[in-house]
Each structure stands twice: as structure tokens, then as C-alpha cells.
């Protein structure tokens, strides 16, 4: 009797399992951030490109050094002007409001910066009293926001206001008895972001400024080269105050960084490194490319070698954390010499035989690179999350998550922190 009753109960329970099912509902919510744009008219924005009061550094981007001044990009906001005449006590003296600004380059007394789709030339003869010289429109059309967000074409986004939003969302399910086995929607967008790589030092008497290794702008002689997501733009600056669009060369998707060396451009992309010849400056010609696993890859070069860092955890996807050293003595056929494992390498710079690598959360690493087949770590500075570096004759300017560091590395055995300009918490 007991078992039949149990069976009946079980049958009833199973029936109730489905009857009561309509009484229970899953509830899943998604809290996300909606960014509401704050618009200004084009005239208002352009009128505000001047020396405004200094602002705290919040999200440092690209860096450029010109004389005793550091020009530091505040991502999508503008440029900090830092008086670095006393390296031990740099002073943040002014801020140039340039909405949508990500990249900067300097030649002579003219600073070039992107303003979303446009290029603006600014006279910085007196960095404390800068003067706008020209706007060249639509050089970077890819900065026109899309993907479901339509910018008002007559206005410019000056700022974004954060708004937290909560909505009901799908809970998932339909994974069967043993639940979900795979994550959904795993692929990637291609944002117009960050990464750029750059250059090491220019000579002391050079009219050119020095870009950090995360830059997408570079200047060679009378031309400004700027990479977008897929193209190399050539802008003539024969007359520095009057930049003129010259040419656009399609390269391929995933372009990140630009590094000039000896009439060559070394272009880092998410899938490899390209070498372009700019003997004819308005018509860059592809010489070769070196393919690698998908990842971000800032690149620098010297006469015989290119140094490429590959990293993950970025819009570039990929899972490599390494430094590739390439032989580029034959520019038409770069070959891999050796791979060194890293933690999360970003920007890098080379000063003589010293190779400096920003290795993310592992800080800054100084290598003796006299033998590229056997790089030897001379010094590692920890305690900072670094991503870009400029190195000039024993002086390193490092951009890290929490600030701008300056080091004296004239003696690798005794590297001194000269100063730190902190980022607003």
C-alpha cells in the first residue's frame, strides 16, 4: 500500500510541477550606464579652444614633449599643458578644451590635434597663450559616431553625463537539464580607442616634438601621418599653420600605432606589423608585413630591429603577452628573431641600448638590448600600472594609471624617481 500511495503522490507532484510552473517567474535585471551627450554648437566649441584654467588629470592619454612643456591628452576632453622646466616639480598650467581629442603631434610651434572628425592646428609659440590657426574638416570621418547612436550633425559633443539605468532582461535558459554550457554573444566590437604607439626621442635640436609610444599621429618632415582604424592619412604641413589633406591609403582593419624611422613607417595592427616606404611622402608604399596572433601590438624600430609588444585584455582580443624582436635588415622580409614573455606589455621606447617596456601592472622594465637575442633585464620598477613611455637621454616620462612619472635612468643600477604628477582619483 505504501508504494502505490507514494507512486500516486509522485505522479501528482510531477503534475503539480508543471501546473504551478505558471505561478513562478524568473526576474532578471541589467543595470548599465547610459551616457547622455552634452552638445555645443560648433562655434561654441571652436571658440573655447584656448588656454583655459588647468584641470586635474583624470584619464591621461597620449603624451607629447616639446621643449620644457609636456602636452598630455585628456581622453576625449582636450590637452593638459604641463610646464616641465623643473622636472622635479612639473606644473599643470593650462587646459585646452578639444572635445573628441585622442591624438596630438607637434612640429615647430604648431600642435596638431584631432577634434572628432576634424584636425585642428594650434600655434603654441607661447604655450601659455595658444592660438588656433586652422580647422581641417572631415580628416577622420570614422570618428563620426554610429552604431545606434546618431550625433546631431550641426552640434559637437562637449561632454557626457552618466546615467545609471536598470531594465528587465532575458534570464537565458533553454540549456536543458544541465543548464547553459556556453556563454552567448561572445564577439567583439572595434572601438575607436586608445592604442597608439610611438616614437622615441627626436634630437634635441629637432623642430619635432617627441611622441609617446601610444600615438596614432606622427610627423615626418613636412607631413603629418595619422592612422585611423583602416587607413593611413597623409596631411601636408609644408605650411605648418595651414594643414592640407593630401592622401588616404587603405591599409586594412585593426590599425593601432604608427612609428617613423628612416623614411619608413612602422604600422602596428591587431594582426601584424606593416612597413611602408615614404620616400614619396604623399604616396606611402607598402614594403612588407609581418603577421602575428591577434592582439594589440605597439611597435618601435631602429636600423636593424623592430620591437613589437603583443598584449591581451584589450579591444584587440588575443591572449598573447609577449615582446617579439624582428630582424628588419631586409625591409621586404622582416623575420622573427626571438619572443620574450611579458605580463601585459604596452608602450615601449628605446634609448641607445636601453629598451624600456611598460609592462602593465608589472610596472616598467629596463633591458639591456645590446644583444637582442639575449635581452637582459637590468631593472624593474613596480608599484605602477604603466602603459606608455618616452625616453630621452637617460630621462623617462612614464604614463601610468595613477599618474605621470619621471625617472632618471642615466644609471640603470640607480634609477631615481624625479617626480610624479598624480591622476585625480
Amino acid at each position, binding site marked *: 500500500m505504501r508504494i502505490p500511495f507514494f507512486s500516486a503522490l509522485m505522479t501528482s*507532484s510531477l503534475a*503539480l510541477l508543471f501546473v504551478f510552473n505558471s505561478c513562478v*517567474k*524568473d526576474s*532578471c535585471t541589467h543595470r548599465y550606464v547610459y551616457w547622455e551627450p552634452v552638445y555645443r554648437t560648433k562655434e561654441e566649441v571652436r571658440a573655447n579652444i584656448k588656454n583655459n584654467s588647468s584641470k586635474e588629470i583624470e584619464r591621461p592619454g597620449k603624451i607629447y614633449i616639446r621643449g620644457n612643456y609636456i602636452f598630455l591628452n585628456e581622453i576625449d576632453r582636450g590637452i593638459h599643458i604641463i610646464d616641465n622646466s623643473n622636472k622635479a616639480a612639473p606644473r599643470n598650467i593650462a587646459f585646452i578644451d578639444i572635445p573628441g581629442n585622442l591624438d596630438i603631434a607637434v612640429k615647430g610651434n604648431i600642435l596638431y590635434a584631432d577634434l572628432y572628425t576634424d584636425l585642428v592646428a594650434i600655434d603654441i609659440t607661447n604655450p601659455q597663450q595658444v592660438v588656433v590657426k586652422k580647422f581641417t574638416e572631415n580628416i577622420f570621418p570614422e570618428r563620426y559616431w554610429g552604431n545606434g547612436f546618431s550625433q546631431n550633425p550641426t552640434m559637437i559633443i562637449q561632454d557626457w553625463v552618466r546615467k545609471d539605468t536598470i531594465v528587465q532582461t532575458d534570464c537565458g535558459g533553454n540549456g536543458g537539464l*544541465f543548464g547553459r554550457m556556453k556563454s552567448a554573444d561572445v564577439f567583439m566590437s572595434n*572601438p575607436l580607442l586608445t592604442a597608439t604607439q610611438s616614437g622615441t626621442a627626436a634630437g634635441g635640436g629637432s623642430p619635432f616634438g617627441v611622441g609617446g609610444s601610444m600615438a596614432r599621429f606622427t610627423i615626418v618632415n613636412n607631413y603629418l601621418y595619422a592612422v585611423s582604424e583602416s587607413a593611413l592619412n597623409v596631411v601636408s604641413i609644408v605650411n605648418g599653420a595651414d594643414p592640407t589633406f593630401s592622401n588616404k591609403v587603405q591599409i586594412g582593419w585593426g590599425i593601432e600605432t604608427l612609428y617613423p624611422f628612416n623614411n619608413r613607417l612602422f604600422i602596428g595592427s591587431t594582426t601584424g606589423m606593416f612597413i611602408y616606404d615614404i620616400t614619396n611622402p604623399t604616396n606611402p608604399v607598402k614594403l612588407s608585413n609581418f603577421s602575428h596572433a591577434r592582439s594589440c601590438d605597439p611597435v618601435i624600430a631602429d636600423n636593424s630591429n623592430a620591437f613589437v609588444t603583443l598584449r591581451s585584455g584589450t579591444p584587440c*582580443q588575443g*591572449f598573447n603577452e609577449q615582446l617579439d624582436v624582428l630582424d628588419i635588415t631586409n625591409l621586404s622580409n622582416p623575420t622573427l628573431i626571438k619572443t620574450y614573455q611579458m605580463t601585459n606589455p604596452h608602450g615601449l621606447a628605446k634609448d641607445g641600448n636601453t629598451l624600456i617596456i611598460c609592462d602593465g601592472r608589472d610596472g616598467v622594465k629596463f633591458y639591456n638590448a645590446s644583444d637582442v637575442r639575449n635581452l637582459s633585464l637590468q631593472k624593474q620598477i613596480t608599484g605602477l600600472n604603466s602603459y606608455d613611455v618616452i625616453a630621452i637621454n637617460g630621462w623617462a616620462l612614464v604614463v601610468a594609471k595613477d599618474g605621470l612619472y619621471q625617472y632618471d635612468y642615466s644609471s640603470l643600477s640607480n634609477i631615481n624617481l624625479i617626480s610624479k604628477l598624480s591622476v585625480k582619483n
Partner: protein
Amino acid sequence: MKLKFFFLSIYISLSIFSFAQKKNSDYKFHSINNLSLLNGDNEVSAGLQTVNGFQKGNLFAGVGVGLDYYIHRSVPLFADVRYELGKNKNKFFAYADGGINFQWVQETYDRGPIFIWDGGFNGSGEFHNGIYTDVGLGYLVDMKKGGGLVLALGHSYKSLKQTVTYTDWRTQQPVTDLYRYNLNRIAVKVGWRL
């Protein structure tokens, strides 16, 4: 240190078990192990549990752990109390569970980039623990030596949180999205009590 703690735990458990098994002891140890069907409005999933504890009179109290496959796999760890109705060998009982729902999601969400249509990329997704409750009624068919078949029907709830951190492509600000999963199911459990 961990090894010492492990052996100490075993010693204490055996002591309690041996105390409970003594003749004339008011406390009796039971281990209840069951399989379950979990039916919510998104899917029907499986689960399994083991509950171990002591009974005095009509009241049972123990600790349970299980595997719960409903949408996102998790491991509930909970306290269990149940009260038997009546004094017959075969009887109904009411039960209530409450505890922590440990996430054990099957896919490594923390590596793959997650595309977010409204503005972002390349997130790192991470699941976080939630809570677990289960209340219901059951029926026990008493068999030899205190063993028995157990059938139960109840309402089971578990929650999980998921955070996805990414850089917003428009503002380039790091942001964190928060997903909250509040999952309600009707649960039927069939098991064996030792």
C-alpha cells in the same frame, strides 16, 4: 594548518555521530539524498542534493549541499529544517532551506570579450554568489532501519549576480554592468533517507 583543521573536523563529526547513535540517545543521524527536477519559466533543469543532520522527535535539522543546473550552474550550501506531521511511520513533513548559492557557472565568462550593443566592448564577466531558499511539503515512506523514500514538492529560489566590466567606446570610460538573476522554480525531489 588546513590538514589539522580537516582532521579536527572529522574528529568532531565522528564524535557527534557516535553520540547520536548511542542507545537511548534522543538524536538520530540521517542522510537524505535526492534528485530533483526544477521547473521555472525559462527551462526545466536537474539538480541533486545531500542533506545530513539529526532528528529529535518530529524535528530534523541539518546541513545540505547540492548541484543546481537551472540556467546557471551553482552549488547551494544551506541549512535544512523539517518537521514531520503526525506519528505514523509514513507521514507528511514540511521543510525549509536557506543558505548561500555559490556560483559555478560552466563557461569561462571571464575571458571572452563580450560585445555590448549599446556601447562597449571587451568586458570581463564575472559571476558572484547569491542566496538560496527552498520551502515545501514532502512525504516520507519509512522503510527498514530508519531508511525511507522521500518525495517533496516546493518552491525553490536562487540568485546570482554577474558583473561585466568594459570600456565604453564613446566615452572611453570604464564601466561595470550588473546583471541580477532571481530565479524561481517549482522543485520536485525524489530521494532516499538513510
